[in-house]
């Protein structure tokens, strides 16, 4: 079986286990290439349907094109689209771009905090109304007990230690040193009230696998990934102020894949353009222990 098929089948299996076993399920969609591949796999797993809500954490510092793309496909693919945010931090301008905190602190407030309170239902969730295409406050505030996330083991050290089904306690903490065993395609699907499980269908995929799959399946991508004639493109998408573009001529999916296989990026880590990683001693462990994706 070709490797991409092996990866695809495993991911679909994980999706179906999660859907069958984990009560109140949602999936995080960051609009980036990984979680968009994840969305595509969900549609495959459920034969064209996505039977759970997609949650996007809006830092309001994302590159504008990402939000346009999100709303376009939310309508086109009939997605149950939800976004959450840290309204207080944004109102007080308590952010890195506003000069009031460090990058790491900003990530913690706008992403980690916003995520955990949106998942728990304590903070408002904005849900798309397909009748008018507008976001409205969701009346459902039940906590999500299963959260599907598109992290990959090859991204950075702490992610390489992840499980496919990774439990989190009430405070979203990740107990790295004491993770459940996971073997023979059997996952942790039983959990105590108040805890939840992060599900990682893309754990075994590499950045190159992602692009090869996007090419094979012809998955629409936000255009920020491509060089539009000025010799720069984004390799990894995050907030505008903390994500740098890279010098690259790659203008199509196959050119990006080729660049990763043999070109200038064959030996350079994907997240090298993400400034917050460097503040954390070269890894994301501190953020991730507290609930960062």
């Amino acid at each position, binding site marked *: *079986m*070709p*490797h991409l*098929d*092996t990866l*695809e*089948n*495993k991911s*679909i*299996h994980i999706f*179906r*286990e999660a*859907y*069958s076993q984990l009560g109140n399920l949602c999936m995080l969609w960051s609009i980036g290439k990984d979680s968009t591949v994840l969305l595509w796999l969900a*549609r*495959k*797993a*459920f*034969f*064209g*349907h996505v*039977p759970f809500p997609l949650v996007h954490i809006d830092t309001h510092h994302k590159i504008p094109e990402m939000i346009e793309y999100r709303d376009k496909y939310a309508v086109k693919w*009939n997605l149950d689209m939800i976004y959450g945010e840290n309204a207080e931090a944004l109102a007080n301008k308590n952010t890195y771009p506003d000069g009031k905190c460090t990058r790491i602190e900003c990530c913690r407030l706008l992403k980690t905090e916003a995520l955990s309170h949106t998942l728990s239902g304590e903070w408002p969730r904005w849900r798309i109304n397909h009748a008018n295409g507008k976001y409205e406050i969701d009346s459902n505030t039940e906590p999500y007990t299963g959260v599907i996330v598109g992290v990959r*083991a*090859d991204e*950075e*050290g*702490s992610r*390489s*230690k992840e*499980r496919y089904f990774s439990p989190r306690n009430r405070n979203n903490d990740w107990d*790295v*040193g004491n*993770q*459940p*065993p*996971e*073997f*023979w*395609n*059997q996952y*942790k699907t*039983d*959990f*105590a009230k108040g805890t939840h499980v992060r599900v990682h269908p893309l754990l*075994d995929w*590499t950045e190159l696998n992602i692009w090869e799959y996007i090419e094979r399946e012809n998955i629409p991508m936000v255009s920020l990934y491509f060089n539009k004639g000025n010799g720069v493109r984004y390799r990894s998408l995050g907030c505008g102020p903390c994500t740098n573009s890279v010098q690259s001529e790659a203008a199509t999916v196959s050119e990006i894949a080729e660049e990763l296989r043999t070109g200038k990026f064959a*030996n*350079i*880590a994907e997240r*090298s353009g993400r400034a917050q990683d460097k503040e954390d*001693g*070269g*890894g994301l*462990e501190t953020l991730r222990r507290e609930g960062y994706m």
Partner: protein
Amino acid sequence: MKKEDMNIVIVGHVDHGKSTLIGRLLADTNSLPQGKLEQVRETCRKNSKPFEYAFLLDALKDEQAQGITIDTARCFFKTEKRNYIIIDAPGHIEFLKNMVTGASRAEAALLVIDANEGVRENSRRHGYMLSMLGIKKIVVAINKLDLVNYSENVFNSIKEEYGKFLAQLSITPMAYIPVSAFVGDNLALKSENTPWHNGLTILESMNAFPCEPPLTQQVFRMPVQDVYKFTKNGDDRRIVAGTVETGVIKPGCSVVFYPSGKSSKVKNIESFPQKAIESAFAGQAVGFTLDEQIYIKRGEIMTIDGETPPPYVSAKIKVNIFWLGKQSMQKNKKYLIKLGTEKTSFVLDEILSVMNSSDLSASAAGSCIKCNEVAECIIRTDKPIAFDLTENIANTSRFVIVDKYEITGGGIVLADARDEESDIQKRVMLRNYKWEQSEISMESRAERYSQKPVLLVLTGERDTDKKLLAKELEKSLVEKNGRFAYYLGIGTFLYGVASDIKSQDDTSTEKIRRFAEVANLMLDAGMILIVTASSLANKDLKIMKTVISTDIETIWVGSEITTDLEADVVISDDVCEENVAMLVDLLKNKGYMFKF
């Protein structure tokens, strides 16, 4: 050509240098991301720690502080031939569950032993867990050879000691390689420090691991994950979804679901975005619509009607369990079993034997199974569940145990705990009931052939030449004595009638039963039938006697019987000609060969 993909796990005792070996291998083959080596060197300088290759892998802060691997890490690695995922498993006993997690993702293993420390507890325990997890492709790296002056003697004595241990698990490693991960000997390049080593380097040995053949040759099995009926956008399909474990299926196939026994026919194999596909095979996550709408649910195993063996259905099962829970596994306490997609509660009914997985010593079966122990036991599930035996289809014989939300153990199914013989007996009764009776009686056939059918079983230790004797006897009976005799070779049988049984263990019950059924047919046809078997034991003979209606004569070849068999005749294995004459006489004297 498209590159192959393979997952390899690195296991072994704590501090024997697993992470160092991988780190060094990555560095020496330029597989690290640009700047990674420098970054780790810089971090070490800042913290005034000597640089270690292991830091490249032990990415977690706790691990760098303590200098051990806590959890399994993955790294990606390429050679000309393959893309590898290297899984670094922890060697500390406390983290055995993490080792199991890492190893179960691999199809081959590199087992590291410190030449200075020699074979240690977890060298053996990890070897045992590999065999339990079904990983048979193993290379043993004897590491830190620089610390013992590259001594060939040290290397050989470890090789011998560990080889003996693995032999007890029926594992033969593909290679033993002398290395020093720290220095870089025999990892990517052959080392001048070990001129006495003519074998492979680590890199070469990895590329030499054969790829796992797809499981499409086995019978079809798919644990049902879910049944979907998404009505959005006018979708009216009812789709049975799951991942095919083994075999192949096509639209139109008649299917049976176990344990319910409900049957239907595959209408379409559903797919998205394309409409429908032609066939589904092992490894694919698929969905089916069925011709007849039947009510089935998650937990059942989908099979193709008529393929054999069908799965077992039972509530009393003989299993081999490895226990990872901090609290011991207790008798008569409720646990959950997850096998395939089935999840139900069960109790530990009986502990038959408990074994220390680090030295294979058996301890008296007590009332519980302690952390990191392995036990053969009988469990009772709340309801009958469907499963296969590990010797038939490994995938659907594997299960995990859940105690209070946590996976705390795993196991494989050895047998349906209904008595094996009574089970075989039941089948034989049914067979006899359905048997097409011939117009020709056994007696009239015997009269026509001037012989009574009999099965001669030539057995003895593995290295005695039973085949030669069998062939010479067959020749003598047919050519010299003009009888109807036939030698049924084990290979003829194993790769034909028993070709769907995967196990290496040729004494498995099902193989013997089938062998006996084939023998029974030939005996029914009036033959004097000769077969050979290595180290036949009493229980094997019992199965044969249950299945075979005619007489059986057992002949032990060799000076003394090394099993519990009570053989009819014992002959020495040196003089073939004399033995043939003796056995012909025996057939005459016991009245199997009539006088012409």
